[in-house]
């Protein structure tokens, strides 16, 4: 399209028409006001708009408005062959692409019935890159959360350490964030030579850094006072609201799909599922959610260590190993409905597929996104709180708008 072609004509009433308010300004009582938070606001973690009904400094009600980053993932997935959807899956949760790819590939493999034929080395590589990406995603979650409520230093530290992971993943796949590395039936490439050793180096490098993070952020008095007893999510509400991932675990339920469903090679790996224990306040508060994420990084490091051992020992690289050996030439699952779910850093990522058996394009591919569902509980847990605590709660939910809006 030529750039001199003006597409947009301004209408005087566009501004008012573009804001679908849920609350009626005419119905406000005295002392009440409507405040718009976002969509362009650093503490909303992307383009999230919150319409907040306030009474002085107290939040009475919150209405999230989403959809600013809607990129029609499901429509695309209905028009593209299964293997060509993977780059779109990357762009759902763009800070944890490997995990989403893993979930998607697993779903299509299950439809094709080749889920259990995938070579062990491929599965271990998948788990390894996914866990690396999980750590990177938690780094973002914790770092930006700290920054939201005034702790600047941990953000820089974590971004620095995240860069090590991104460079490793770039080395493996060629891209920093959106990898297209896990393919249906295999991998794009085997790991580069020396990757396992570098991964081991990273593990030894990062452990003391996490101890530092613990003292500077988690045990920090200001951080504790900003997060403890704030945004408490009771367990019954969490389950009823479909909350998954660190949020659910922080509310006290030991529920991790890697353990519960035991997909991929996770049953062969030894790791714990940390839960919120209410050490600083009530169970399920913002501090617990952050603490669960930090503990999960430690667990992911444990998984990584075991993957390194397996990938350099039992399933070490051989000359004739072809990670694309099982990649099907034609992906044509038989007619069926299938729901697959997997644990990504934010929670349960699910895909609902409907295949008609005559086509290599899905009739329906629904993405059940965990950020979307986790965000939907926000109005429930932010009634009667202070506006500053609302910021603390949004950050602790750890939403990625790419996944909320799809």
């Amino acid at each position, binding site marked *: 399209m030529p750039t001199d072609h003006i597409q947009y004509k301004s209408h005087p009433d566009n501004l008012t028409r573009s804001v679908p308010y849920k609350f009626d300004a005419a119905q406000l009582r005295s002392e009440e006001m409507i405040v718009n938070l976002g969509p362009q606001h650093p503490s909303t973690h992307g383009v999230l708009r919150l319409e907040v009904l306030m009474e002085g400094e107290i939040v009475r009600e919150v209405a999230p408005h989403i959809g600013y980053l809607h990129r029609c993932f499901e429509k695309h997935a209905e028009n593209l062959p299964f293997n060509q959807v993977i780059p779109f899956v990357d762009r759902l949760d763009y800070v944890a692409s490997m995990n989403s790819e893993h979930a998607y590939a697993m779903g299509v493999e299950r439809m094709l019935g080749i889920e259990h034929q995938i070579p062990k080395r491929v599965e271990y590589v998948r788990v390894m890159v996914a866990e690396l990406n999980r750590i990177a995603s938690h780094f973002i979650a914790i770092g930006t959360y700290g920054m939201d409520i005034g702790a600047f230093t941990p953000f820089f530290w974590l971004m620095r350490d995240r860069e090590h992971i991104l460079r490793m993943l770039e080395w493996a796949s060629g891209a920093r964030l959106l990898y297209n590395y896990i393919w249906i039936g295999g991998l794009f490439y085997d790991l580069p030579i020396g990757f396992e050793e570098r991964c081991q180096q990273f593990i030894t490098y990062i452990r003391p850094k996490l101890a530092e993070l613990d003292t500077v952020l988690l045990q920090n008095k200001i951080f504790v006072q900003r997060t403890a007893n704030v945004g408490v999510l009771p367990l019954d509400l969490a389950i009823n609201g479909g909350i998954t991932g660190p949020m659910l675990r922080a509310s006290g339920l030991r529920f991790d799909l890697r353990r519960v469903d035991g997909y991929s090679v996770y049953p062969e790996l030894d790791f714990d599922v940390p839960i919120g224990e209410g050490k600083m306040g009530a169970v399920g508060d913002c501090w617990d959610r952050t603490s669960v994420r930090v503990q999960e990084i430690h667990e992911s490091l444990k998984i990584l260590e075991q993957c390194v051992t397996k990938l350099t020992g039992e399933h070490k690289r051989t000359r004739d190993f072809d990670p694309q050996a099982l990649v099907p030439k034609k992906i044509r699952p038989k007619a069926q409905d299938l729901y697959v779910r997997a644990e990504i850093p934010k929670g349960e990522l699910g895909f609902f597929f409907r295949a008609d058996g005559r086509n290599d394009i899905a009739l329906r591919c629904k993405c059940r996104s965990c950020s979307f*569902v986790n965000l939907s509980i926000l109005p429930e847990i932010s009634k009667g709180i202070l506006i500053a605590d609302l910021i603390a709660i949004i950050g602790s939910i750890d939403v990625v708008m790419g996944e909320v809006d799809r």
Partner: protein
Amino acid sequence: MPAFESILTLVQNTCTHTPPVVDDSASPKAIVVAAEDLLAVAQQLFTSPETYFDMLSCVTGIDNGPPANTMEVAYNLYSIPFHTHLMLKVKVSREKPEVPSLSGLWKTANWQEREIFDMYGIHFTGHPDLRRILMPEDWEGHPLRKDYTHQGYYRDIKVAY
């Protein structure tokens, strides 16, 4: 852990309008119920101590296109204590799609049903706040319908690129 057969019996006993149909090809196994029975069945599955489906994982809208002239809503239920999965499916006509809302049972249904309303135009009766969620309020049509054609201009912005 309740077997699929016992869940099916429970569903059969709850359905008063149309007997449920089993879809074996689906994974997890699916039970197709009539829209009139859905609320009672869901209520039963949610509260019954034998099934205890405390988590509604996913609600999916499906359009079968103009030739079939039906739309479907699929519910993926999961029971945390029993570790059982179940898919519930409802089939409605495309002309006047109406399904009872389950947001009174599971809070997670609220936004997921809003999304289906947005994308397919399926009305969820009894939903507390049925508004569009991803598309703008004044968008025309429901984008994921199979016969959807987008409007030419949205507020003077050309939609096709």
